[in-house]
Structure formats: C-alpha cells, structure tokens
C-alpha cells in the first residue's frame, strides 16, 4: 500500500477513536480542569464576584494563617473526624465481625445497616433536627429523644442537644456516624469474608483463644481494608457540611462551623471569592496530605 494512503488511514483511525473520548474529555476539561486551575488563579486575587480583579499575591493565604475562625473550623471538622474514626469505625467493625458467620437474619441486618448511607444528608439533617427538637408543649417533650429519655427514667439527661454549644458538635458527629457506619460495615464485612475460614480452624486446633485469633489472624489480614476505610472516613468526615447546614439553622454561628461552611460563608456571606478560593486550596492541600500519609502507611503494611 502507498505509505501516504496508509498514514492517512492511521490518522483517520486515530481521529475516530478520539471521537469516543471527546465528550468525556470536553466535559472533564470544562467542568473539572478549568475550575480547578481558575480556583488557584483566583486565590491570588481580591475579587468580589463582579467588577475588577486585583492581584494581591499571597495576601489571602497570609490572612488565612491568622484567621482564628478558619482554624477553629478545621478543629471542629477534626473533632467530628476523630469521633467517626473511633466510635463509628469500631461499631462498624464490631457489627461486621458479628455478621461474619451464619447468623439468623444476617441478610436483614446487611440490608438495614446500609439504609442510612443511602439517605441524603438533607433528609438525615432535617429528620435529626426534628428528633432532637428541644421544645416542650403541654409538659411533653416535642423531640423524640428527649421524650424517650424522660419516660425511660433519665429525665436529668434531657438536653437541648443542638442548641448548647458544648454538645452541638458531638451531637452532629453522632448523627454523622449514624449515617456513615454502614459504609465501613459493608467494606469490612466483605474483607472478613475473604479470609480463609480454615485459618481460624487451624488456630483453634492449636489451642488459640478467640482473642488470640482476633489479634493474630483477623487484624493483620484486615489491616489493608481497615486503612482504606480509615482514609474514606477521614476524607468524608472532614468535608461534612450539608448535614450541619440542615441540622443547625443559623443558631450557633461559630460553634459548628467546619471548613466547607467557612468557604461558603466567605463566598456567599462576604462575597470574597478570592479568599474563598484560597481557603479551598489550603483545605484541599490538607486533605491530599492526609490521604498521602495514609497511602504511604498502607504501602508499608502491604510490604510487611
């Protein structure tokens, strides 16, 4: 074949193939790459959303460094993440261990535990807000939780859970864990099911107790899955905000702020687009850093 005809055929073939990925690449460049680069660009500017932009170098970033509310927000998100990492993941692991056997209604539990994760944060938040309602009407507690506490003999525990700054964040973290533990449960359960049951048998024959089997077989074999669940928990919990928006309406301005609500406030509340972008960049870098450390850790575990 004539080399020119041949190369024309290859070119045509390549162009045809590129047409397959073109829609995806176009959407991706317009709605992901461009906003991503623009966010970095805007973070070096002072801009109110309209009107002229002023290049101010690193001023937004230096302002963030001394922005106490911003670092409070990071600490709040860290606190929620800590509760999710410990309480939520321990619960998920315990439930997965309990379901990793032929147990009556096992299928029912598997279905039920994953119902909260499929609900939206808005639904969970507004539902939580109603159940935690602190009000009293005709001597009766309106909210289900306080009502339940008062009739089951713990009237001293009745509390304005979301209204009191000292309990609001913990309450949010518990609701967040309620919504999220199903993810960890399913992933850990699938991981447990890949462990060869003969290993347990062999250990039992050798006279190992339940605790020894758990620490010497289950935990080491599960470590990679546990690390993945931890990374996803951290990334998910640090970025929680819709739940907070729908659970506490305005009441507690700074006590329940998290980074993403802080970005929203800078953008909508104050109209400072440049500052909001700088906050987003810093927060993104923190998350990437955490994910990177966890990745290194899991690589080390896999090697060992």
């Amino acid at each position, binding site marked *: 074949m004539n080399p020119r005809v041949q190369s024309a055929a290859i070119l045509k073939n*390549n162009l045809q*193939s*590129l047409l*397959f*990925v073109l*829609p*995806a690449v176009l*959407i*991706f460049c*317009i*709605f*992901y790459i461009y*906003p991503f680069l*623009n*966010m970095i660009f*805007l973070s070096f500017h002072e801009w109110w959303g309209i009107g002229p932009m002023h290049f101010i170098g690193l001023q937004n970033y230096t302002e963030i460094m001394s922005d106490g509310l911003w670092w409070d927000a990071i600490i709040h998100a860290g606190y929620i993440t800590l509760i999710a990492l410990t309480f939520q993941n321990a*619960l998920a692991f315990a*439930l997965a261990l*309990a379901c990793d056997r032929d*147990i*009556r209604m096992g299928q029912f*539990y598997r*279905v039920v535990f*994953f*119902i909260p994760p*499929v609900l*939206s*944060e*808005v*639904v969970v938040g*507004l*539902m939580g807000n*109603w*159940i935690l309602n602190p*009000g009293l*009407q005709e001597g*009766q507690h309106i909210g*289900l939780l306080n*009502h339940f506490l008062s009739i089951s003999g713990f009237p001293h525990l009745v509390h304005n859970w979301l209204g009191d700054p000292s309990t609001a964040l913990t309450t949010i973290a518990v609701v967040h864990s*309620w919504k999220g533990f199903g993810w960890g449960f*399913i*992933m850990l359960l*699938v991981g447990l*099911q890949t462990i060869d049951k003969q290993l347990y048998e062999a250990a039992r024959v050798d006279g190992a107790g339940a605790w020894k089997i758990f620490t010497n077989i289950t935990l080491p074999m599960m470590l990679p*899955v546990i690390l993945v669940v931890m990374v996803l928990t951290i*990334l998910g919990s640090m*970025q929680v*905000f*819709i739940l907070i*928006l*729908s659970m506490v309406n305005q009441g507690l301005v700074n006590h329940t702020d998290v*980074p*993403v609500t802080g*970005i929203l406030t800078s953008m909508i509340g104050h109209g400072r687009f440049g500052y909001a*972008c700088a906050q*987003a960049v810093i*927060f*993104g870098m923190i998350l*990437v850093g955490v*994910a990177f450390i966890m990745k290194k850790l899991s690589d080390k575990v896999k090697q060992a």
Partner: protein
Amino acid sequence: MKINKFIVFGLTKLTLIHILLMSVAVTCLLPIFWMVRCAFMSNETIFTDKALIPQQLELGNFVIAWTQGYFAVYLLNSVIYTVCVVTGIVLIASLAAFAFSRLKFPGRKVLFYMFMAAMLIPLPGSFVALVVLMNKLHLINTRMGYILCMINVGLSMSILLLKTYFDRIPHDLEDAARIDGCGKIGIWWHVALPLARPAIAVIVVFNSLTVWNEYILATLLLGDSQLMPLQRGLMVFQGANSTDYPVLMAGLTMAAIPVILIYIAMQKHIVKVFSSGEVTG
C-alpha cells in the same frame, strides 16, 4: 458437665451478638419510621401524641406538600435531573471506557490517568470556581448547566468501573463482530454495552443516588424554584415554614422512600461493587 458449660457460653455469646445487632438495627429504622409516622399527623397532635401508631392518621399533609409546597415541581425536577444525568453518564462514560479499553490512539494512557487522578484528589469547595464558570457561560439557573455539572461529578468513577469490565470481554467476540461488518460504534453498541449490563446497573444505581441526594450544586446553581430538585426544595420549605413539621415530614418521606425502595430492590448490585474491590482496591 464441661460440654454444658460450652453450650451455655455459646448461647450467651450468640444472644449478646443478637442484642447488639438488633439494637443497632432498631436505631437505624426507628428515626425513619418516626419521620413517616409524623408525616401522618396533624399540627395539633404532632407535638403531644407520642404513640408509635397514632389513633388518627392524616393524609392531608401529602396533599398540602404536593400542592402548596411545590413538592410536585421539586419531585418532577429531581426525576428529570436523575434521568438526564444518568443517561448522559452511561453514554459518555461507556464510549470513553470502551475507547480506553479497546481502541488504540495517541494520548490514551495520559487521558485515562487524568480521569483517575481526578477521582483521587479531593476538591473541597470546588463549587466556588464552578459558580464563577457557570456565570460566565450563562448556564446559571438553567437545567442544562446543572445536568452537565452533575455528569462531570459521576464521570471518573463510571469510566473506571466500565473500563475494568470491558477489559474482561474476550477479544474473540469483538473479532466476530468485526468480521460481520461492525465498525467501532457497532462493536460498542452491539457487543460491549449488552455484555456490560451488570456494570451499567451498578453505575445507574450509584449515580441515581448521587443525583437524587445532591444538594450543594443545586443550591448554588439553581435559584428559580421552578428548577429546584427535591433536596433543595426541602431546605427552602424548612426555611419558610420552620414550624410546619407534619408537612415537612411528608416532604422528607417523599424524598427518602423512593431511595430506600430502589436500594432494597438493587441491593445485590450495590454489594457487588464492594466485593469486586473496584471501589475499595
């Protein structure tokens, strides 16, 4: 007597396990049940009547939510967005995944890793730049703008899932189709898509949940109440009628029940994603 001791110990352990599982299951279901129950109460009884099954069931809240609370509009919008976004994702992602898996062209690897990198890098607050962009493109407050943004959200994960699936289709099938005169598009449509039905089912379920439950972009991009989806509508309704709990609960029920039913119907597909290790790995 040793055996008896073991049996007693085993039974106690099993009972404790069941108590743990049962109490968590109740904690999961009770709030949802309470929400549905409160949707059937009136504004007079909702604050004081605490019976699990109230004596009087009120259907009016759903009618009020449907007619005066704009929930008919919100629900229709949510259905429109979900159908459009999911259809778009399935078509666009399967075309791209097919090319990444089966076709050879320059830049194939680079483009594929670009999509994968996007999945790994968390972008909190990317909505700020997205709002700026949509303003520039005059796509703010349009259905089209919201749909395109949401297609982008689900694209990377769907491409990855489909590519791993396409990689497993034997080459013989492709060759047979080619001999029968199928072009690339023909192979994609007649061979790859039908064979990838299980993967497509997973993509449809996951992206439907994402779109149906999405809130923040809907809030920032859609200001017109005629265009709002359910999640946004719920917040608007709550902001405007913060004490009309029965109607709010009716709205929440309408938002939550379809999701729960679809989840239970498609439950096997969802668990499959985890067991295949494509999300976890």
